[in-house]
């Protein structure tokens, strides 16, 4: 795998750059949301909501589209191609986490609008926490590339 990484064609680099950069923004935005919402301040709720809505969701879209772009460059989307397990796992984590992200954004948005956190604040922290764990697993999958 090390050798494969070293001989990656140059024309994959830009797609990979967009993928990793957007994934980093996504990770940063969900951690920022978790830390902000977990506090007791009303401003933290708003920051958490905006971090998810303006940061995490657009970054998720960019991460997902660039993943598709790389997969097509590697011909992994062609008919009859045996897709490696790590690619499938990446897509599963990505798509599953999007539903959780949407739920967290809705919860934090309602909590911010109501002006108090309560159960919705806790729900947001739990949901965002799940995505953080999922993304750490995704980072491991992308680096170790288990087959």
């Amino acid at each position, binding site marked *: *795998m*090390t050798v494969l990484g*070293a001989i990656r064609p*140059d024309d994959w*680099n830009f797609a*990979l*750059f967009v993928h*990793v*950069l957007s*994934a*980093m*923004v996504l*990770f*940063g*935005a969900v*951690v*920022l949301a978790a*830390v*902000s919402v977990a*506090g007791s*301040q009303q*401003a*933290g709720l*708003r*920051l958490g909501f*905006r*971090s998810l809505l303006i*940061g995490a969701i657009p970054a998720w879209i960019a991460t997902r589209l660039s993943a598709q772009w790389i997969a097509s460059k590697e011909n992994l989307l062609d008919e009859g191609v045996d897709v490696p397990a790590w690619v499938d796992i990446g897509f599963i984590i990505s798509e599953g986490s999007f539903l959780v992200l949407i739920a967290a954004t809705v919860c934090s948005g309602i909590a911010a609008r109501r002006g108090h956190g309560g159960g919705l604040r806790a729900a947001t922290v739990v949901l965002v926490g799940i995505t953080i764990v999922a*993304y*750490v697993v995704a*980072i*491991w999958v*992308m*680096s*170790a*590339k288990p087959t």
Partner: protein
Amino acid sequence: MYDWLLFFHLLAAFLLSVTAVTYSAVALGAPAGGRTLFVADRCWDVGGLGTLILGVWLALYLDQYEIWDGWIIGAIVLWLVATGLGDGVRRGFADAEPGTPAAGGVATVESRVALMHWLRTLAVVGLLVLMIWKPGA
């Protein structure tokens, strides 16, 4: 061994992104409390050390790279620049009045500190460019 080194190296890089995203939000006017900035700063500390130590370890571990390769030297220089700028950003926020993060208030940001933050973020993006294109490798 290689897989774990690469995983923790990547994870450290993702911690740097937490700092970059948090301070970007503040630079754009978001009200971040002291706890949020504290977490962002710790992510920078752990991520910065992790990327450097594990990156050098990877360069020594892999036969196809040498520590004196141009892109690795460039990455170390960019890392030093980002670290220096990060120190300035942290001090800039610590000196900010009123509402210092340490007091649990909402941080405000001067344009000079914001500029240092954006330059630091650019340095982090530059590091990513070097890691992916590996010019000269």
